[in-house]
C-alpha cells in the first residue's frame, strides 16, 4: 500500500530541486543553506570540507579515469567520480596544481580514501537536498 502511494507520487518540477542539488554539488551543504536548513547545511559543509582538507593534508592521491581490465576501470573511474563529487573543493585543488602521485604508506592511503569519501558524503547531502526541495522530506 505504502509502495503504491510512493509510485503514484508525481515528480516535482526540475526547477524546484535542480538549483539546490547543483549548489549542493558545487558547495558542500550549499543546497541545504539555499533551502533555509542552515544548521544542517553548516554541519554538512564543515564535515565534508574537513574530510577533504584532511585528505589533502595527508597527501592523498586524486584518481584519474583509466581503462584496462574491469577492476582497474572500476576503481579509477569510480574514484574519479567520487573526487569530482566534492565540487568546488576538487576544482580548486586541481586548479591550484594539487597533483600528488599514488605513494606507498598508510597515511597517503587514508588520504586518498578521505578525498573520495568526502565526495561520496556530498552525494548523500545532495540526495537529501533533492528530497527536501522535492517535498519528500521536511
Amino acid at each position, binding site marked *: 500500500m505504502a509502495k503504491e502511494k510512493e509510485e503514484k507520487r508525481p515528480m516535482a518540477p526540475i526547477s524546484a530541486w535542480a538549483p539546490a542539488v547543483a549548489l549542493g554539488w558545487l558547495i558542500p551543504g550549499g543546497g541545504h543553506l539555499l533551502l533555509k536548513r542552515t544548521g544542517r547545511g553548516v554541519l554538512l559543509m564543515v564535515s*565534508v570540507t574537513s*574530510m577533504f582538507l584532511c585528505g589533502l593534508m595527508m597527501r592523498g592521491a586524486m584518481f584519474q579515469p583509466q581503462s584496462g581490465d574491469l577492476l582497474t576501470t572500476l576503481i579509477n573511474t569510480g574514484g574519479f567520480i567520487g573526487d569530482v563529487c566534492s565540487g568546488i573543493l576538487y576544482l580548486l585543488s586541481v586548479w591550484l596544481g594539487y597533483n600528488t602521485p599514488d605513494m606507498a604508506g598508510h597515511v597517503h592511503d587514508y588520504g586518498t*580514501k*578521505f578525498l573520495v569519501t568526502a565526495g561520496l*558524503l556530498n552525494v548523500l547531502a545532495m540526495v537529501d537536498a533533492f528530497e527536501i526541495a522535492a517535498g519528500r522530506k521536511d
Partner: protein
Amino acid sequence: MPKMNLSHFEAAFLFSLFTSVVLGVVTKTNDRDRLHYGAYTFGCFLVALFGIGWVMYLGHG
C-alpha cells in the same frame, strides 16, 4: 598546505567522526533522531575499529 601524519587509529577516528555526522544529518527526520543515529553510527565505527584491530592482532599470533 601543512602535512598531517596520523596513526591508523587517529585517521580511522576522524573518518568515523565526519562520516557519522553526515549520516546523522541526512538520514533522520528530526534533530533528536539525527543525534541518536549519528552517535549510534559513530559507536558502530568504533566497535568495528577496535574489534577488527583485535582480530588482526590475535590473528598475527
